[in-house]
């Protein structure tokens, strides 16, 4: 089993340590990730698309056209998945869109038929859940995980066509397969607020604040994410929220791949945890997780 790896912009150029765990877990599962030269920004569905929709279609289609792998593309980012799946959706839905997009691509000698499959890495993990379970060497006992699905992992369901748009279960099942407990909390399905940050930082903060509040109240001891935008929203704002509201939130913010990597037996030192702002060491000690 192999996929073409679409890295996007945020993870490789800003949060490379998240890339480490993501690559390692698929290696362990025996799933090959091919690096492809020449990808551009997906482009950002919360940025570039809002400037110009046609550019979004063109650059997205160009990226998709670079994949020759039968398995299609795998991505570590919900935003990239939404863009690539979205471009596929519009091209395959309306033949005039396909024609127009290929008119743009023709200028750079490329063509796109609309046939490249796209999968979120969590989807690949879920589809190989038995293999994931087999590879768990250190079950994450005592980890009380607050899962944040995020919005672009699920919706719009016509484009993403993966999990239930309002009552999803795939990430819960993966977390449970790792031996951890998934904690229910009030605002579990609410948006983290990251896309609003460019327009209104205060509003964006209000949204992430209420998530932290509910997660804390529910008794979770860590958060897990599958999108680098959400990751930034949680990781980079925790301290500011404390300053603003006099709280003492100090939850380790994990990327799903990091949790999987820990469960697979990889050492925290090789996974770049020193780059996290909220260090997980206290958590490991508290639950007796041997590192």
């Amino acid at each position, binding site marked *: 089993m192999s996929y073409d790896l679409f*890295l996007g*912009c*945020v993870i*490789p*150029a*800003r949060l*490379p*340590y998240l*890339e*480490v765990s993501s*690559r390692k877990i698929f290696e362990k599962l025996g799933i090959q990730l091919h*690096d492809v*030269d*020449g*990808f*551009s*920004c997906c*482009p*950002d*569905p*919360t*940025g*570039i*698309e*809002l*400037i*110009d*929709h*046609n*550019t979004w279609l*063109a*650059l997205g289609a*160009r990226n998709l056209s670079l994949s020759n792998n039968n398995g299609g593309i795998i991505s570590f980012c919900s935003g990239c998945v939404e863009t690539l799946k979205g471009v596929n959706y519009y091209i395959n839905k309306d033949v005039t869109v396909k024609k127009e997009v290929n*008119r*743009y*691509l023709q*200028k*750079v000698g490329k063509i796109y038929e609309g046939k490249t499959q796209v999968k979120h890495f969590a989807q690949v993990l879920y589809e190989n859940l038995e293999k994931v379970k087999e590879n768990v060497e250190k079950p994450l006992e005592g980890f009380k995980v607050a899962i944040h699905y995020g*919005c*672009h992992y699920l*919706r*719009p*369901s016509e484009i993403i066509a993966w999990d239930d*748009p*309002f009552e999803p279960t795939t990430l819960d099942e993966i977390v449970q397969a790792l031996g951890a407990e998934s904690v229910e909390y009030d605002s579990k399905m*609410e*948006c983290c*607020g*990251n*896309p*609003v*940050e*460019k*327009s*209104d930082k205060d*509003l964006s903060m*209000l*949204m992430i604040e209420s998530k932290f509040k509910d997660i804390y109240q529910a008794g979770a001891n860590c958060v897990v994410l599958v999108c680098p935008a959400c990751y930034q929203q949680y990781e980079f704002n925790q301290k500011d929220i404390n300053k603003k509201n006099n709280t003492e939130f100090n939850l380790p913010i994990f990327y799903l791949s990091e949790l999987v990597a820990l469960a697979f037996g990889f050492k925290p030192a090789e996974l*770049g945890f020193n780059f996290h702002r909220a260090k997980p060491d206290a958590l490991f000690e508290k639950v007796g997780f041997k590192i």
Partner: protein
Amino acid sequence: MSVINFGFRNEVIKHNASLSYCYQCSTCSGGCPVALLTNGVYNPRKIIEEAILGLQEKLIESQDPNPWLCSTCQKCVELCPQKVELTEIFTLIKNKCFEKGKFPEAFLAQGQAVLENGIAIPYSKAILTRREKLGLPEVKTAPVDEIQQILKVTNFEKNILKGDK
């Protein structure tokens, strides 16, 4: 006083026909997290209403409500009983805001980065060193001139330049 602009209204419908299905039930604003937090100052139903009525001035010039506050969570799209594709329609409205030069500055930075580098976040020296230390392979991104050629055809540059005040 708001004037109905039929041309604008028809343009939006041409881009996304689902706009005309809306029967203003306000399911979208009832489920919208930003509408609740801003007590209706941001209001997806109102944006769609103004688009249906062709109130271009209100939507694009005054940006009342401000479409840039949409968090793209897509709950409205998923809940809408008439399958109105709100986020798609908001995308068109935002594209038009860009044409008129009325948008939050932060978007400009990303647009320019893609225009100049083909990617939204250029690789700094520090990151390249860090990647090496973490044992990660070098990333070969798209040839910039190829991206710029596409951006010329789609008129992306014009949008950016127009908005570049």
